[in-house]
C-alpha cells in the first residue's frame, strides 16, 4: 500500500468516525445496533492508527509490540484506578493512601511466594486479602471518625495515611528492594509480535477481575447497595442500607484490586520497594480522573490510555518524557471535558 493511499484511507476513516459520533444517539437508541457503537468506534480508531502508521512509513509491528506492552502496564494502572474511583463514588474522597495499599499487596504477594512457597493464584488471593484488610483498617481508623468533617480534613488525613504507610513499609520491609522470583518465563509469537507470557497473564487476570467487578456491581445486592450509596446517600439510608458497611465493603474491594495490581506488577517488573506506590498511585489517580472519577468503566479506560501512551512515548520519544506526557494528557482531557472521558455533565440543580 502506498503512503498516499494510506493517507486517503486515513481521512476516510476519520470522516467515518466523525459521522458515527454525530449520529451516536441514533445508533445507541436502535436496539439492533445498541451494543455495536463502542466496538465500531474501537475498530475505526485501530484502522485510523494503522493507516496513520503506514502514511508515516513507521514500523507497524514495532508499534503493535509497544502498544501490547502498554496494555499490561495499563492493566496495573487500571486496577489501582478502580479503587480510587469506587472510594470517590461512595465518600467523595481521593484516597491518597491507595497507592500504598498497592505496595502492601506487592509485599504480601512477595512473602506469599517466597516465604509460604505458594504458587501464583494462591499468592494473588493472599495479597488481595491482606490489602483488603489493610484498606478497611485505614478507613476504620483514619477516615470513619471524620465522616462528617469537611472534605479537606479527610484529604489531608489521606495524605498523612499515605506517608505513614510508606514509612511503616520502610521500617517493616526495610528500604532494600526485593525481587520477585520469576514465575512466568517464555514468550509467544502472535501474528509476528512477540509477547511475554507474564504480560499476557497480567492482561488476562486484569480482564477477569474487571469482569468479576462489573458482575458484582451490577447484579449482586452489596454491589447494588454500593451504587445506591454513590448516587444518593440519604435515599440509600432510607432503603435500609447500612452506610458504614457499604463504605467498608467499598474499601475492601478497591484495596483488593490494588493488591492484585501489586502482585501483577511484581511478575513483570520484579523489583519492589516500600515507595513503589507513589508514582503508580499518582498515575492511577490521573487515569481515574481522565476516565471520569466515580465511573468504573472510566477507570479501566483511563488506565489503559495512560499505560499505552506511556509505552509509546518511551518507544518513540524518550523515557524521560514519559511522566510529563501522562500528566499532560490529564490537562488536555480536562480542558476538553472537565468531567473526564465517560463523565456526564452534571449541572447543579436548584
Amino acid at each position, binding site marked *: 500500500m502506498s503512503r498516499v493511499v494510506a493517507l486517503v484511507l486515513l481521512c476516510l476513516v476519520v470522516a467515518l468516525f466523525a459521522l458515527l459520533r454525530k449520529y451516536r444517539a441514533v445508533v445507541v437508541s436502535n436496539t439492533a445496533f445498541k451494543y455495536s457503537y463502542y466496538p465500531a468506534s474501537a475498530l475505526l480508531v485501530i484502522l485510523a492508527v494503522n493507516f496513520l502508521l503506514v502514511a508515516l512509513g513507521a514500523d507497524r509491528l514495532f508499534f503493535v509490540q509497544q502498544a501490547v506492552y502498554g496494555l499490561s502496564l495499563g492493566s496495573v494502572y487500571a486496577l489501582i484506578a478502580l479503587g480510587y474511583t469506587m472510594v470517590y463514588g461512595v465518600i467523595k474522597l481521593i484516597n491518597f493512601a491507595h497507592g500504598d495499599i498497592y505496595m502492601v499487596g506487592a509485599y504480601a504477594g512477595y512473602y506469599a511466594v517466597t516465604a509460604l512457597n505458594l504458587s501464583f493464584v494462591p499468592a494473588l488471593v493472599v495479597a488481595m486479602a491482606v490489602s483488603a484488610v489493610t484498606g478497611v483498617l485505614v478507613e476504620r481508623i483514619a477516615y470513619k471518625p471524620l465522616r462528617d468533617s469537611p472534605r479537606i480534613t479527610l484529604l489531608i488525613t489521606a495524605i498523612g495515611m499515605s506517608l505513614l504507610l510508606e514509612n511503616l513499609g520502610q521500617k517493616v520491609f526495610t528500604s532494600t528492594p526485593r525481587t520477585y522470583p520469576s514465575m512466568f518465563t517464555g514468550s509467544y509469537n502472535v501474528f509476528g509480535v512477540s509477547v511475554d507470557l507474564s504480560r499476557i497473564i497480567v492482561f488476562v487476570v486484569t480482564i477477569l477481575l474487571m469482569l468479576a467487578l462489573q458482575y458484582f456491581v451490577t447484579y449482586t445486592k452489596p454491589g*447494588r447497595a454500593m451504587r*445506591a450509596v454513590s*448516587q444518593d446517600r*440519604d*435515599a*440509600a*439510608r*432510607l*432503603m*435500609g442500607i447500612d452506610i458504614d458497611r457499604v463504605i467498608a465493603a467499598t474499601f475492601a474491594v478497591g484495596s483488593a484490586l490494588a493488591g492484585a495490581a501489586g502482585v501483577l506488577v511484581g511478575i513483570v517488573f520484579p523489583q519492589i520497594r516500600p515507595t513503589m506506590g507513589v508514582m503508580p498511585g499518582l498515575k492511577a489517580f490521573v487515569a481515574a480522573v481522565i476516565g471520569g472519577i466515580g465511573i468504573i468503566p472510566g477507570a479501566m479506560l483511563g488506565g489503559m490510555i495512560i499505560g499505552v501512551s506511556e509505552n509509546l512515548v518511551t518507544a518513540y520519544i524518550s523515557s524521560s518524557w514519559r511522566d510529563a506526557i501522562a500528566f499532560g494528557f490529564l490537562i488536555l482531557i480536562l480542558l476538553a471535558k472537565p468531567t473526564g472521558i465517560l463523565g456526564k455533565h452534571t449541572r447543579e440543580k436548584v
Partner: protein
Amino acid sequence: MLRVEDLHVHYGGIHALKGIELAVGEGQIVALIGANGAGKSTTLNTISGLVRASGGRVEFLGKDITNAPSHEIVRMGLCQVPEGRKIFPEMTVIENLLMGAYIRNDSEEIKADRDLVFDLFPRLKERQHQVASTLSGGEQQMLAIGRGLMSRPKLLLLDEPSMGLAPLLVKEIFNIVKAINQQGTTILLVEQNANMALSIADYGYVLETGRTVLHGPAQELAANEEVKAAYLGG
C-alpha cells in the same frame, strides 16, 4: 402506632423543631401541614433517623426509636418517601424498586410485590428498563412511592408527594395514596397542598415555626377559620 413527644432539633445554632407532638394510629392517614420552613420535613427526617434529635422521644410500635440508625428503623417497618423523590438516577426503574426491597430476602415475594407496584402504576411497567433520570417528574414520584412500598412498610412517611406536579397528576397521586392506605398501610403525609392533604386524611396537625400549633380531625381542620385563612387560600 407512632408517637412523637416534645421533639427538638438543632441545626448548628438554629432551633428548628421546638417541641413537636404528634401521634399516628394504625390504619390512619395523618396529614402534617404548614408553611415553608415550619419544620415538616425536619420532623419526618428526624423520625426516620436522617436527622439527630436534640431532645424528645420518638416511639414506633411501642419501641423507642429516637436517634436509632435509619437502616434499623426501616427494618422495623417504617419507610420514608423523601422530599424531591430522591430516586437513584442512574439505575433503571426495576433496579430502583429492588433497592426498595433491600431489607428483604424473599425473592419470590419481592417479584410479586413488584407486580403489585406495576398494577398500581402501569406507567412504571411500561418504563421498567428505562434509567430513572429519564422519567418525567410525575413518573419519578410514582417510582419513589413504589420503591417505598417495596419494603412492605407498616407506616409510610410521604414528604410532599405533590411537589412540582401538574394538578391532574396531583389528583392521581393522592388517589393512589388513598388506595395504598385502604390496602392496610398507615400513612403520615407532609404537604404544602393543605387542601388536598386534608381531603384524604383522617387527622391533621398544623406546624408553625417548629411547633405543633393546632390539631384535630381533618374535616374540622379544613373547616377551621384560621387554617382556611392561612393555608387553604381563604
